């Protein structure tokens, strides 16, 4: 797995993203100041439970938010283009060609009345600059590249004739057909068997490294994220709470929520009694009096400083924690730049 080189420009950089939803029951402040970046060829995971805003982040970046949603501030820089403020025509050019997304339930994300080969060919023609005549053949090649046996025959099949795993491969083929530089995968293996999951994740990893493509995995499965990505960004209630290389995150999680999340994952415990649940509940995001740290009301490490706005990340920091009272870092080892109460001037 490739980790980002601090010197090269990131493939995608999200800065200060804020999203609101207008609902019957009030305004939901779904995302607040979400920032992260993914380097060229890097694999990153966006991890959080339901309500954390991870999918909303992806949808906002791709410009496919629900009509009730509004991006109130922030930028998403892809190359030199700000995706959040681009014209629809610019977005239409860039989506598919430079940035692509795969979705959670493959069979419903595919067009049910169009053969899969044609769906891939559509992308090739639109974004891949492939002449119409050659597109069907290249589509078959894409199907072969994603590991579908007998691709020439399968290209004529409809999504309902294929299994979940195969549909997911088709979706990957569609997303990667025009060789984008960034792939966002929104829970790509939820609903698939664990054996199929392993194969699909292998496939995405292989193709990404072959193409030098940056990948953002969105998942609620912390163990899966740990296995497949070089960097993990943990989200809670619309905030980024921790952003660190995978090894560091698991070796010494610094945000209390991250630590609790690890302790709640079944794989981390030897017996049921050792598993710990996370105290408290998600705050109601419709409130106008949300505290600056949305975890503070349920946090066992809450201190007085937590009523202030969250600390800003130091530029160039590799392990970012949005916390005034984070768990202690080891004193020896790799240098970490952490913005916290300790080193704020």
């Amino acid at each position, binding site marked *: *797995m490739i980790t980002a080189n601090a010197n090269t420009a990131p493939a995608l950089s999200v800065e200060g993203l804020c999203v609101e939803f207008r609902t019957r029951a009030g305004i939901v402040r779904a995302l607040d100041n979400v920032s992260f970046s993914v380097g060229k060829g890097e694999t990153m995971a966006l991890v959080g*439970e*339901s309500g954390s805003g991870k999918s909303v982040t992806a949808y906002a970046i791709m410009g496919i938010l629900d009509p009730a949603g509004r991006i109130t501030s922030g930028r998403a820089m892809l190359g030199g283009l700000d995706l959040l403020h681009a014209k629809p025509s610019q977005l239409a050019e860039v989506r598919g060609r430079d940035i692509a997304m795969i979705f959670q339930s493959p069979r419903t994300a595919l067009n049910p009345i169009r053969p899969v080969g044609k769906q891939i060919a559509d992308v090739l023609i639109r974004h891949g600059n492939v002449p119409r005549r050659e597109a069907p053949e290249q589509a078959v090649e894409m199907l072969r590249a994603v590991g579908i*046996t007998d691709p020439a025959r399968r290209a004529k099949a409809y999504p309902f004739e294929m*299994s*979940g*795993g195969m549909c997911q491969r088709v979706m990957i083929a569609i997303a990667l057909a025009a060789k984008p530089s960034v792939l966002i995968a929104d829970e790509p293996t939820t609903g698939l*068997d*664990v*054996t*199929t*999951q*392993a*194969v699909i*994740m*292998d496939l995405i*990893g292989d193709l990404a490294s072959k193409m030098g493509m940056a990948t953002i995995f969105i998942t*609620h*499965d*912390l*163990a*899966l994220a*740990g*296995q*497949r990505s070089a960097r993990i960004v943990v989200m809670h209630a619309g905030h980024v709470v921790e952003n660190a290389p995978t090894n560091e995150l*698991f070796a010494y999680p610094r945000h209390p929520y991250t630590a*609790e*999340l*690890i302790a*709640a*994952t*079944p*794989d*981390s*415990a030897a*017996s*049921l*009694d050792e*598993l*710990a*649940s*996370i105290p408290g509940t998600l705050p109601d995001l419709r409130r106008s009096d949300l505290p600056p740290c949305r975890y503070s009301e349920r946090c066992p490490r809450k201190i007085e400083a937590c009523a202030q706005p969250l600390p800003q990340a130091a530029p160039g920091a590799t392990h970012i924690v949005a916390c005034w009272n984070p768990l202690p870092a080891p004193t020896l080892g790799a240098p970490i730049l952490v913005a916290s109460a300790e080193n704020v001037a």
Partner: protein
Amino acid sequence: MTALLDVAEFSKLFPVSGASGTGSLSWAGLKRRFQGGPEKLPKVYAVDNVSFVIEKGETVGLVGESGCGKSTLVRALTRLIDASDGSVKLGARELTLTPAREFASDPDRARIQMVFQDAGESVNPRFTAFDAIADPLRRLRKLSGRTLRDRVETVASQCGLPPQLLTRFPHQLSGGQRARVGIARAIAVEPDLLVLDEPTAALDVSVQVVILQLLQRLKKELGMSYLFVSHDLSVVKLLCDRVLVMYLGKIIESGPAMEVFEHPLHPYTQALVAAVPRFGEDGAERLRLSGEPRSPIDPDPNVCRFYGRCPRGTNACKTTMPELRRFGARQVACHYAEDFLPKPEPQATS
């Protein structure tokens, strides 16, 4: 001592109608249909000659990929569908003698209950939580009025549901609250055997912990046995005493949960365990299964169901179906199981 549930040579077959590739729409298929009658129709062997036992107070896990037949098996055990062949004994009573249709009014109906995967789907959207929990009590225990209300509130609080939530509809409850309603409904009639069909699959990890601990506590308090169906091996390892691994309608391995997952004997179980993401491991390619499972329609009874996908496949595998063989507390259906048995500890030399 009689086991709580004794399943012997149980099978469930479904006739296939209009499936592509099996020729029922072809001329040959039509000929077969008219000449042979319904017995000659191609059949899906959803569950094929399965035998196992659940003791009182045990938690048995059932794992397998989609299409392995665990849903069908579970629906047959809970008497929602009928068996094609074989026996299911609850204590001393043979359940297959009563058709599924008539079991709803049977006095033993309350002894086997089920918690469903998606509590949002399994509670009528027009019923309040109270109605949902009260339904089995009204029908099976004939409770009403004050007694009913008290019992519902007792069960609800046992499951961590405060009384003010009882007047809510499913869409007004969180995922965890809905799961509790499903559990409360299932235990309200104090069943002997509780079948749990992926009860935490739709829940966040933090909520899952709470629900699993609740299930553990209820089991001890009420002395139930559990049949826990799940695809999440980490959860099964924590909760279950024993585990059964199914593949294409057959049980291919069984044994104490910890042992089966630490030391799988069947190649499929090995691939399954290798595929589970673990903390502290990277995703380097290990044992990976290629291709798709064989067709469950009219499978060849002499060919191992895993043949073709198994990393090993010899002549023996395609000429003789491996039987489920016993090795101490473990059972495996593979000709080469001995190769994977843990080697005995060498004798200490003096």
